[in-house]
């Protein structure tokens, strides 16, 4: 399958390893990945912070770029939620019948990475190898907007060598919330403190999620305390194989 990668603005800029892992994983599974360099941002930050007018051209831009794509893969559930939950309403507000139709036709081809793997490509075992103690943080959008359920965990359970531990209070928000983390810094910090306690109690060395944004917040807090936990987007766990590890050892 030809998969168009929408990397998201923050992964592109701050976390290129996420995108590299997605590319590796999908190509390893026999798919062709395309990257359209005109892509920038889905508009979520603007839309959710109240700058809905500013989000409009970003929505049009996304739609223009991907209207003919076979499948669009987005390694971020909150960006997928932005597109699924709000693009139809934005299109309706534009009162542009062409745009409304295009958005309608486009939405079923937009996939969060683990959705693409399990629901569209029918894979639960991607042949990955990751010999580390890992805990999975279920981001709010992945749970309550995309309703991913245990899709990410099904993929993780099939990873060779992984020591997967449940994160307590998995349904509770970590306190990131986009611009909330800046605008309501003290409350965000209090929420983060709770989440860090839960992560530390698992004894995991790696915290993973389908959203790098929550991880940037949780890991940012843990790093400040020199917590001995690192972050990895789920793609970074699903991409490596045992032969990579062997090659790594030889090199």
């Amino acid at each position, binding site marked *: 399958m*030809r998969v168009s990668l929408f990397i998201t*603005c923050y992964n*592109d*800029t*701050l*976390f*290129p390893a996420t*995108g*590299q892992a997605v*590319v*590796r994983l999908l*190509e390893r599974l*026999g798919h*062709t990945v395309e*990257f359209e*360099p*005109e*892509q*920038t*941002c889905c*508009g979520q*930050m603007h*839309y*959710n*912070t*109240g*700058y*809905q*007018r*500013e989000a409009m051209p*970003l929505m049009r*831009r996304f739609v223009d770029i991907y209207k003919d794509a076979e499948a669009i893969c987005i390694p971020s559930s909150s960006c997928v939620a932005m597109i699924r*939950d709000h693009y139809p309403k934005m299109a309706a507000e534009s009162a542009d019948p062409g745009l409304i139709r295009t958005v309608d036709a486009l939405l079923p081809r937009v996939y969060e990475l683990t959705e693409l793997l399990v629901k569209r490509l029918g894979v639960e075992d991607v042949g990955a190898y990751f010999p580390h103690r890992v805990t999975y943080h279920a981001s*709010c*959008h992945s*749970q*309550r*907007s995309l309703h991913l359920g245990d899709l990410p965990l099904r993929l993780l359970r099939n990873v060779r060598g992984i020591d997967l531990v449940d994160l307590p209070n998995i*349904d*509770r*928000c970590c306190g990131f*919330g*986009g*611009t*909330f983390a*800046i*605008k*309501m*810094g*003290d*409350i965000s*910090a*209090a*929420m*983060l403190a709770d989440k860090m306690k839960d992560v530390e109690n698992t004894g995991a060395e790696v915290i993973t999620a389908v959203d790098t944004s929550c991880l*940037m917040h949780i890991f*940012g807090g843990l*790093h*400040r305390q020199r917590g001995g936990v690192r972050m990895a987007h789920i793609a970074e766990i699903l991409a490596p194989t045992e032969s990579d590890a062997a*090659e790594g050892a030889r090199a």
Partner: protein
Amino acid sequence: MTIRVGEAEHAPSFQKAALPLLEDAQLRRNVRHATDVIQRKRGIVVHETEDWQELRTAGSAIKAHTLRYLDQYLLQFEEACTAAGGYVHWAGDADEANRIIVDLVKQYSGSEVIKIKTMTSEEIGLNEALEQAGIRAHETDLAEVINQLGGDTSSHIVAPALHKNRSQVREIFRERMNLPGLSDDPEALTAAARHYLREKFLRVKIGVSGANFLVAEAGSVCIVESEGNGRMCLTLPEVLISIAGIEKVIPRMRDMEVFLQLLPRSATGERMNPYNSLWTGVRAGDGPQHFHVVLLDNGRTGILADPESRQTLQCIRCGACLNTCPVYRQTGGHAYGSNYSGPIGAIVTPQLLQMRQAQSLPFASTLCGACYEVCPVKINIPEVLIHLRGRVVREQKSALDPEALAMKTAAAIFTSRRRFEAAQRLGRIAQWPMVSHGWMRNLPGLLGNWTRVRDLRALPKQTFREWWKKRAKHAPNTPASAPLRAARKLSEDIGRD
């Protein structure tokens, strides 16, 4: 119009009001404990209800329908209530409602009233208005008694003293009820409250209540509660005055089937409330002989006029969104500046105040969606929050506000590939003085709020798109739609990188 929502118009911003609360370790422990207990109970009685989602859909549909025909149902209620011997008054705003109630109390020569817990009376500041008119209001709901005697305000719409634990309650009762030997045993505390309240139930001749539901077809009013103190106020006085927001009306008696399942399960984790009072007008020789209903607008028709957020008025005040909210969990209710706290308060208060005050409240959420998930009438609170944020930005923010400037600049960057890529390169250079060993720990300006408690990894040497471009250059003969073999070859190449 004097629309008022408690003291919200004078309240500090949410983030400011939260600061002393975050310092209060006792309060935070109390809030965590109480909300955990209620949520656990709710979870049990919701999961055992096989048609819970259907009930939510029905509750939402009944409320949405009623709001669509609100004028008709209110008139129907007025007619039926009047026919049953009640009097219906219409109040446009808080002052008018207070005036009506003060006048009624004076008309019946009263100098005191006993009150059932009513958030609507706290919204309009009824107790203060009564006091100014020389009328004493005695709260009778146990939590309200605690708050009234302790000089405190509600921190939760269902459990107003949820922020207090029993040793704190004991201190208040000891001092205010003059009971120096009182223990913190719950039975002893309840007995003290009972003794304190009984005398008032038997003496005071005028009762004031809110309403959970107004049944249009029958002209009936319904109150559900757990303590029975409400039942005392509804049955013992000679005069009963009930104040209700106009959104409290439901069309038919049979609609109660849906709401009397949704409300107790969501509010207190009970299958049914211990006391469900339903009355219609007056009945000779039985209960209050004079019954008045005050129907309150106080900004509600303004909410009704906004199709994007009118779902706010579907609320049945169960408090489930407060209990599940990760923000409320940290601060408790007082940060929200009025008696309406938590996610529902964050959308009700600023809207009642026509978005002129309480503008920080729509931002007091991570949009995590937990509130929407538990809402028994399916109010999409995150969607309404986003809509209200938009109104704050469009109607209130100056174009020179630093945040507005940053957002506009970001939008300009994101609408052009060239600008986006330039910004990525610029960021990599500009971050240099702030980076230490690959991390940033002290950023300036708005971003300083990030690095106060979190580190931020420095921008990497290469963005994803730069990596992609370089990689494509190394494999120039691999077109986008290349066959599988080529793709595999490519992936092997990366594997060796």
